[in-house]
């Protein structure tokens, strides 16, 4: 069994370099170029003069990969610990293939679809009142998440293959919980940040004017129209597979037409 050659500092550096993951993103190999680049210093240290071993490792690590940048350090740490032990190349390759997908899934669920809307919603509620604390909270949160990349890397490196099991066992429950949190907040975001207010008023007896918006929609259910429009978008995106760009343009045109018709 090979002795350990990577120091703690090497692993920390690997975590920092994991941010290079997408440096040469492309549709053929996705993140492969950056994935390899980030690991090169560690690989060089492991394979020293053995340039044929280094070559094999580099070739393997140039294969297609697409996973979540905030968590990729975990995978890098795990695999580099196997490289350091000079495990079988096929094991290393197999683990990479088995894990990058689930990590992408968990990461996207947590970071893109849960954390971002929540922290954006909160920050924007400050910013929209002109308070600089909004973007400060936002950036601070993401700096914290970035620092965690180093933590994940150490964790992956230390747990080794055992982490494989843990991840597989809990990935379902975790992304389910994250989604619950996210969905709750999205429900609130729709009520808070989508605004559709009807302008028309109805003339009733005696010259009194009744606003359709306040007298009808706000009475039956506030924010009914924003919710309805959002659900319509959801339906068109999901069931009719219409592209968001088309919907954006259609919405703008619709809004302009309604503006001319004094509806909105």
């Amino acid at each position, binding site marked *: 069994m090979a002795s350990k050659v990577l120091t703690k500092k090497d692993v920390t550096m690997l975590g920092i370099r994991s941010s290079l993951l997408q440096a040469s993103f492309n549709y053929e190999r996705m993140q492969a*170029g950056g994935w390899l680049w980030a690991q090169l210093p560690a690989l060089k240290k492991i394979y020293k003069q053995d340039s044929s071993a280094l070559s094999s490792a580099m070739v393997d690590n140039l294969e297609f990969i697409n996973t979540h940048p905030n968590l990729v350090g975990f995978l890098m740490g795990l695999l580099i610990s196997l490289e350091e032990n000079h495990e079988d190349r096929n094991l290393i390759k197999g683990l990479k293939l088995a894990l990058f997908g689930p990590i992408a899934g968990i990461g996207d669920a947590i970071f893109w679809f849960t954390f971002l809307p929540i922290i954006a919603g909160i920050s924007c509620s400050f910013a*929209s009142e002109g308070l600089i604390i909004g973007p400060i909270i936002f950036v601070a949160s993401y700096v914290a998440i970035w620092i965690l990349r180093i933590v994940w890397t150490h964790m992956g490196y230390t747990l080794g293959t055992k982490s494989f099991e843990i991840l597989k066992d809990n990935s379902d429950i975790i992304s389910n919980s994250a989604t619950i949190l996210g969905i*709750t907040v999205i429900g609130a975001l729709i009520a808070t940040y989508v605004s*559709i207010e009807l302008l028309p008023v109805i003339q009733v007896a005696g010259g009194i004017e009744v606003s359709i918006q306040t007298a009808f929609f706000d009475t039956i259910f506030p924010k009914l129209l924003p919710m309805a429009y959002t659900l319509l978008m959801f339906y068109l995106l999901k069931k009719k597979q219409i592209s968001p760009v088309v*919907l954006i343009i259609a919405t703008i045109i619709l809004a302009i037409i309604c503006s001319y018709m004094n509806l909105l």
Partner: protein
Amino acid sequence: MQITLIQGLLLSIAAIIIGVDYWLEAFFIFRPLVVSTITGIILNDVKLGLTTGALTELAFAGLTPAGGTQPPNPVLAGFMSTVIAYTANVDAKAALGLCLPFSFLMQYVILFYYSAFSFFMAKADKAALEANPNAIGKINVITTLIVAVSYGVIVFACTYLAQDAMANLVNSMPEKLIHGLEVAGGILPAIGFGMLLRVMMKAKYIPYFIVGFLMANFIPMSNLLPVALVGFAFAAYDFFNAKQRKYELQEALARTNINTHGGNQDGI
């Protein structure tokens, strides 16, 4: 208001840094909230940056690159919503509507690079076979640089160079059209949220969706933290409940297996 040359250059430099951040998805200063705030600082109108940023951020909430897709570009949206509100002196909502063409433009530029950079992979394969780390480094640096420069140039052009044309265009727009864009700005977040729902929503999550919606509708609060906390409470409940069920099942099965085994031994 006019953007000075200095401001134009500062915006361009900011665009290079932010553009790289978006390319790498590192510190998330590429989100419209931050981009607009920075633009506001450079243009010396922080408040404008904050309000346009907040609005643009929410409209882009669901437009994520998850899965390797390219959404309308948040960086250009962040820059241009603030810049248009500043130069053409329109409401934040209208500016959101007007910034979108620029966002689409940049989306397509990046999509082009996604395809074009595939050609570097042949070179990379060669470097890997030759165990040549430096060549790999060079490829990554080059691609990143190309992206960085593109952001710098395009943002400079769109903000400093095009400002008069844009202001004229906007000022010649009829009032109803501007109002229509404002209205659109209020509705656009619906599409972002629709995108989020498309990925996340399943029938079993409907209860949480309803509760979040109702809370925001009927309980007065100054921000959404309480809703997030309730959402967290739901998530934690579900988590512990799932674990508990798993445990009870295993317990029960373990007990049965023992019994069954016992029974078998008797029978044989």
